[in-house]
């Protein structure tokens, strides 16, 4: 809807227009602003530069994974294996980097490049397996990704024997993992191009149209001549690659290959996407919404920590806020529909 509207070029950019544009994303921006105000009152440090940077750094990984998850959700799928992919990437890329840096101790960039390539390979391979199960074997995405998540976790443990891989190059750990460039975390510079690419893919390229169509009504896509299997494969492979990329950046942050990394991501990434307007039935959702969803989850978690809410109560509050955000969103959308 929005794209056609923007392309029409009939709406001059007035403030009222900006507000209505914001409103077209549902109540989420408003809920978010209210949350921010509450947190800021509760702890003035909330909007301080260090804490904002801190939240940015925390959001990067979830953002990458949620954008990958979004692709799969748009196409009517589901990826529960993102957590296992993060762990597998972490172990494999770390092992590769350690091996390369032992062979060529003075070539940190070679090492990092090798690690990056290994990451991409792991992502593509995992995504291929998921896509194969869903697109070619035509098994339900829930079962496939539950199964592959068990398989990937098994492979991770067999490869690592459950032991961390340390000895990563300094440039990787201190440069990418915890470095800053012009006041912003380096990992952000890595993530932004990937996120922007997905944005363009979804909103401005044929690919996006096709996956929306597949998720919305497979039949319509078939009739339109879309190669369903190819695009489903691509979605799962892109999702796993984005996830692997996040796993690699996370490995830099944690400075070692970790076999237990990423357990929180499957549910969090789906939650972020759904809060941001993605439907689990496919064909609905927008990158901007998912971005908001990621920010929302990050802000609420960080804010509750800063308000010193005990974690038991945090769980309760988080649940209530989660449903509340979605309810308000629905309520506003309904009102909009009535107008």
């Amino acid at each position, binding site marked *: *809807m929005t794209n*056609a509207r923007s392309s029409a070029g009939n709406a001059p950019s007035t403030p009222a227009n900006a507000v209505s544009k914001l409103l077209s994303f549902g109540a989420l921006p408003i809920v978010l602003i209210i949350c921010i105000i509450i947190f800021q009152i509760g702890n003035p440090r909330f909007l301080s530069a260090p804490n904002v940077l801190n939240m940015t750094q925390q959001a990067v990984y979830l953002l990458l994974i949620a954008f990958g998850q979004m692709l799969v959700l748009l196409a009517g799928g589901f990826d529960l294996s993102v957590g296992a992919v993060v762990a597998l990437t972490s172990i494999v890329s770390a092992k590769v980097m350690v091996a390369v840096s032992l062979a060529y101790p003075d070539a940190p960039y070679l090492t990092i490049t090798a690690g990056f390539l290994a990451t991409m390979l792991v992502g593509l391979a995992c995504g291929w397996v998921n896509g194969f199960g869903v697109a070619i074997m035509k098994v339900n995405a829930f079962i496939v990704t539950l199964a592959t998540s068990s398989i990937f976790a098994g492979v991770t443990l067999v490869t690592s024997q459950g032991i961390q891989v340390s000895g990563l190059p300094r440039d990787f750990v201190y440069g990418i993992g915890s470095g800053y460039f012009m006041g912003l975390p380096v990992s952000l510079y890595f993530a932004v191009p990937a996120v922007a690419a997905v944005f363009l893919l979804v909103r*401005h390229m044929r690919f996006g*149209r096709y996956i929306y169509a597949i998720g919305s009504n497979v039949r*319509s896509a*078939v009739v339109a*001549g879309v190669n369903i299997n190819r695009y489903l494969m691509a979605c799962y492979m892109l999702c796993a690659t984005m996830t692997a990329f996040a796993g690699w950046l996370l490995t830099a942050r944690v400075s070692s290959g970790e076999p237990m990394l990423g357990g929180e991501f499957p549910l969090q990434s789906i939650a972020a996407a759904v809060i941001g307007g993605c439907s689990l039935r496919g*064909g609905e959702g927008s990158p901007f919404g998912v971005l908001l969803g990621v920010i929302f989850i990050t802000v609420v978690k960080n804010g509750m920590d800063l308000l010193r809410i005990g974690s038991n109560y945090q769980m309760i509050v988080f649940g209530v806020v989660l449903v509340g955000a979605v309810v308000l969103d629905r309520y506003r959308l309904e009102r909009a529909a009535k107008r």
Partner: protein
Amino acid sequence: MPVQTHAVEGEVFASLSNASKFYGSFAALKDVSIKLSCGEVHMLLGENGAGKSTLVSLLTGTNRLDEGKRTLRGADCPNLTPLEAREAGINTVLQDFGLAPTLTAVENYTLGREKTKGGFLDKAQMRADMIRAMEKLGVSIDPDARVDTLTRAEQQLLEIVRALGGKPGALILDEPTATLSHDESEHLFSAVQLLRSEGWAILYISHRMEEIRRLGDVVTILRDGRFVGCHRLADVSNDQMITEMVGREMANFYPEIPHNPTTVALEVKGLSSGQKVRDISFAVRAGEIVGLGGLVGCGKAEVARAIFGLQPIDDGQVIVAGTRISKPTPAAMLDCGLVYLPQDRRGEALALNRSVAENIVVEVLGEKNSATAGFVKTSVLGRLVADVMTRLKVQPAEPRKLVQELSGGNQQKVVLGRALSRSRKIFAFDEPTAGIDVGARLDFYKQLQQLCAEGAAILFISSDLQELVHLSHRIYVMHEGFCTAELDQGQITEERVIAYAFGEKPKEDIQ
């Protein structure tokens, strides 16, 4: 696949020879041959479940050809994909739409043939294309509206516009007018005639004889998945076609329904609902059929929906058998004896992945004698299902078959069966005959006749003008949400209904 790009008049564009398609051991098509020639409108005729849509699916590459040969522009293509078919110039309007509900109209319009500039979508260009294509057909749909907010008729029009915007070659229309009203149908007919003159090959499926006669050059008739005959329309009479199609002679089409109205069963006063229903008042008495007519989007469907409680009532009263219902809900209205039959069979009437039997009895389940202490009386319901299925001739007569495996017309019969599954006092039918064949139509009219004789009050909403005019005892015509006329039995003519539907006054009423 190598394809030629432009067609020559009279040349065979696409053909099937001795084609068969099996679902399990059941032959949906057996040994059927058909030739689509350029510059010719080819009609396809057959009862519900005869295999027409299946034939279409073979031409568009959405189904595998089990036996036989398929050619496109002279080339043999045993493994046709939908993409190849499209590239070769086959444009299709399917019986059950192939639109993506969460995409906008323009996104659907361009789906599969998006225009790009440097890899990015050229949205302005695509939008302009669509607007131009709509002008050609004389329709206007908001390009930015999500398809699931469009009415069924608008969706149908969008499908047609989309098919017309494809690569030139062939146009396949599977019951395109099933929910279109007079005006839109006229636009479609002229578009079809224009394309024919431009040398397109056209395959047209319809159950309406007048369309077949008016547009067709050639007609192919199918029965039970088999080829029965192929004629030039000039050489064949309607009766002959019907006889070939159903395998027997057909009696007089619209039955005479006696008009013996008694008490008022359903009354609506000053009803307003949403943006499409404004200040509507009418009454339906027991023992009569009251028609509701108008153009697409005039709000006739919403009237019935509001009465049945499917959309909120903003103002006005709904009175059933003298009692005012302040806030109708489907359950409450069913309890008062009013049953509503929605026009959107796949969206609103059927549980597609459940069996025929389950779909037929779902409304009856709420009744006392269909269950003891919550346990379903399977034998009672089994008899009811068997009865309904024979009465409406649902084919195949397997109560356990999933509804999604039935042909479009047979799905519609299941919807009718659900409405007729128990005795009611008031019926609201919205497009009840969409997609059912002549024989089934006649059976349904006879059911109406019988219901009427038994004293049922019937609100009949249809965009098939002839049907509306012939069956209704009285007609209310709507235009842009308002009721523009009430026509009594003597006054009902097609011209009057059309005129009022356009919000004008017919000549004979001006004096």
